[in-house]
């Protein structure tokens, strides 16, 4: 009897890969894809790694496939932009062991900087793509993807969205079905060496494969038609299928389990049998354009929003024009945006930078939250590793006028991901950009995955720790400093000095993330308090945006009663449950009202 378990889409993908006899898995963390590799790493007998970036991850998985092993590489949607280079060429080489590529898209941008629709990559790279709609299908489709990959000699893309990756649903545990290919070195240069002469021949292979894939799509059991009321027919895929079933339980539906290549015969057949066709899909009109290209009349994006996630109410309202059934209007309440944690070593740096009045070229990580109020200390943020190049470009555009006015800021993991090449450019092209590497020893934003600077692997094994300072010197940066970011005065001094230097410099601000287990458990944590009689209500301490510092408003009467100045509008307190003891706030208070708990003298 099959055993039912409750899994997220990402956990189900890991299980599906395990049941398919996966041997090698690689990834760079990125929401909503992160838990795929985290779960794979818990299975015995599978090599799993966090790679420095998605391109390397892809190349590792492809290498494993060339050696005849089943391999999987996973990433968030924007990660595939980084890995696009090997993706396109691997469509030419094909595979030996099955190669499955997971792209976890993020409609609605829950935690992303854009909402690109990666189904377009399947089309552009000429690679087949599966799209599961729930965890149960995610497991099944990954298993099928490995089979398809070996049968058709191609990498196979599996696209999830946040609403599949992070949804939990019931999944059946299944049999383990491994590859028939025997791992080992095989030299097949005409297949693996993409010199133009070989690549031209492989291009022909690719085209032949594509014809076979088209035929397969028409016979694929997960491209399935469900006939009910034939007045309305929906063509849909992925999570949108579930929204259609919820909103229109009695309609006919063609659900594409494989969104590329398209099953032409099935679509034509469906069109013949239903009166009116609606294509329901999130983001781009990917399926819709193809249906229209077949000469079939259908409605899609003129009714269904192209931006953001769908849900059953949006689908229903878009088609029928019916308004939402909501009974209560939303009430206006304070927002609760994410924030840097109490004790976060990044907070002090952004306070320093905001005082220096410089353009802060930022990057992707926890520290991107410094863009929010009250720090408001980030002026650009494009993609992983872009900060250094952005800063250099601004500097080159402005020449000497830029000196002392621009800094690049990025984290340790981001620097390793794709910041290193930017720094090389600064040195090589004689820039004077100051780069701050916020080294908190982990990839914090996605949930504390180790990286080459953390000194351990995904399995927790000890590994060689990358020496970022030595690396920067090797790149050719002469001015490299490591500072403790909790020491705001010292950090300010060094940053001020370096931004005015007409040479490249790197300042590594090194302090562990406060959420790392060893930091949470530390015993020598001393907490801070605000001495009420010294607090003047100047609000300087609030500017750093620490969640542990709270403002208590008071009336004039209260002020008198409590012994404050007559016009004092309130005072600050430190929430002992939240204070992490970083001490960054101490230097902000001119009146020495912040002190170590138990030391009311204000001395430190």
């Amino acid at each position, binding site marked *: 009897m099959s055993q039912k378990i409750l899994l997220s889409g990402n956990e189900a993908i890991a299980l599906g890969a395990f049941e398919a006899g996966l041997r090698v898995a690689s990834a760079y963390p990125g929401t909503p894809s992160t838990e795929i590799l985290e779960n794979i790493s818990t299975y015995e007998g599978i090599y799993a790694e966090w790679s420095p970036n998605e391109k390397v991850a892809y190349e590792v998985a492809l290498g494993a496939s060339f050696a005849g092993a089943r391999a999987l590489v996973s990433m968030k949607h924007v990660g595939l932009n980084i890995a696009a280079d090997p993706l396109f060429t691997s469509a030419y080489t094909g595979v030996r062991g099955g190669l499955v590529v997971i792209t976890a898209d993020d409609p609605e941008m829950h935690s992303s900087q854009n909402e690109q629709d990666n189904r377009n990559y399947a089309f552009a790279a000429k690679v087949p793509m599966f799209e599961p709609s729930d965890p149960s299908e995610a497991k099944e489709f990954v298993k099928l993807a490995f089979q398809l990959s070996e049968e058709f000699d191609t990498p196979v893309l599996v696209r999830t969205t946040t609403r599949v990756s992070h949804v939990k649903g019931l999944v059946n545990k299944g049999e383990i079905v491994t590859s028939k290919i025997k791992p080992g070195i095989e030299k097949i240069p005409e297949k693996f060496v993409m010199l133009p002469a070989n690549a031209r021949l492989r291009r022909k292979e690719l085209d032949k494969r594509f014809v076979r894939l088209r035929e397969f799509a028409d016979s694929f059991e997960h491209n399935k038609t469900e006939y009910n009321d034939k007045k309305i027919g929906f063509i849909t895929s992925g999570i949108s299928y579930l929204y259609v079933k*919820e909103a229109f339980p009695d309609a006919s539906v063609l659900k594409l389990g494989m969104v590329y290549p398209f099953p032409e015969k099935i679509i034509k057949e469906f069109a013949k049998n239903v009166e009116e066709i609606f294509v329901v899909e999130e983001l781009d009109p990917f399926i819709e354009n193809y249906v229209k290209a077949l000469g079939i009349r259908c409605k899609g994006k003129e009714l269904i929003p192209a931006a953001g996630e769908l849900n059953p109410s949006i689908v229903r309202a878009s088609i029928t024009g019916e308004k939402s059934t909501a009974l209560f209007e939303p009430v206006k309440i304070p927002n609760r945006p994410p924030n840097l944690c109490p004790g976060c070593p990044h907070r002090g740096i952004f306070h320093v930078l905001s005082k220096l009045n410089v353009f802060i070229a930022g990057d992707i990580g926890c520290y991107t939250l410094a863009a929010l109020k009250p720090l408001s200390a980030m002026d650009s943020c494009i993609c992983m590793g872009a900060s250094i190049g952005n800063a250099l470009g601004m500097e080159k555009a402005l020449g000497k006028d830029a000196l002392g006015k621009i800094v690049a800021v990025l984290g340790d993991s981001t620097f390793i991901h794709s910041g290193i090449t930017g720094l090389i450019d600064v040195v090589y092209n004689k820039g004077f950009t100051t780069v701050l590497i916020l080294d908190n020893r982990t990839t914090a934003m996605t949930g504390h995955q180790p990286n080459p600077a953390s000194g351990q692997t995904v399995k927790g094994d000890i590994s060689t720790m990358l020496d970022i300072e030595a690396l920067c010197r090797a790149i050719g940066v002469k001015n490299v400093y490591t500072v403790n970011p909790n020491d705001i005065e010292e950090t300010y001094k060094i940053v001020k000095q370096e931004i005015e230097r007409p040479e490249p410099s790197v300042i590594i601000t090194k302090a562990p993330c406060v959420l790392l287990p060893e930091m949470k458990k530390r015993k020598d944590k001393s907490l801070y308090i605000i001495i009420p009689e010294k607090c003047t209500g100047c609000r300087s301490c609030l500017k750093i945006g620490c969640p542990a510092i709270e403002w208590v408003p008071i009336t004039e009467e209260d002020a008198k009663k409590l012994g404050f100045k007559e016009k004092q509008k309130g005072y600050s307190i430190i929430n002992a449950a939240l204070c992490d003891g970083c001490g960054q706030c101490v230097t902000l208070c001119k009146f020495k009202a912040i002190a170590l708990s138990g030391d009311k003298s204000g001395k430190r």
Partner: protein
Amino acid sequence: MEKGNIIFCGVGGQGILLASEITSFALMKAGFDIKKSEVHGMAQRGGSVVAHMRFGDKVYSPLIEPGTVDIALAFEMLESLRYLPYLNKNSRVIVNTQKILPSSVSTGIETYPENILEELNKKGLTVFPVDAFEIAESAGEIRAVNMALVGALSVFLPVEEKLFHDVISEHMPEKIRKVNTDAFIKGRSIIKKLQEVNNKS
């Protein structure tokens, strides 16, 4: 109740995802199909967190439609107001009376709304206030707030109490099992008491 829509909402770090997980496992053991949707990522950093849970014979969409929530389990008072458009007049709202200040309030830019429970009552909703922090504290572990609330929620679910105890035993390390079970039982009994009071009045 053969099917239902439950919303879990609160602040990152309150154990909302674990609470929704324990509830899902219990519903699974009781034989229901389940879909549960949560958003990770930025929300971990003290932001507003919400999980949608749906159960029944067969569940399609993992998202709850506005106006169709049967039970809202709010881990923080202010957060109970945030998802009002998802509720209807028959919804039950279990509210942890704990306050966690959003940064805009702690920095004095905005004020924390007063009379939240009255506000909910005025809308005709059935409100069950629970001091889950106090329950957790008396059970000996302030982090057991989430199990106190699961206990409160369990009263309204078509799941035998024993199944919840089984799930807690299976999913929690031995060290913290007892305090969590105690918090669960206290949370459950508080709702039962409130129900009695409601029935009498």
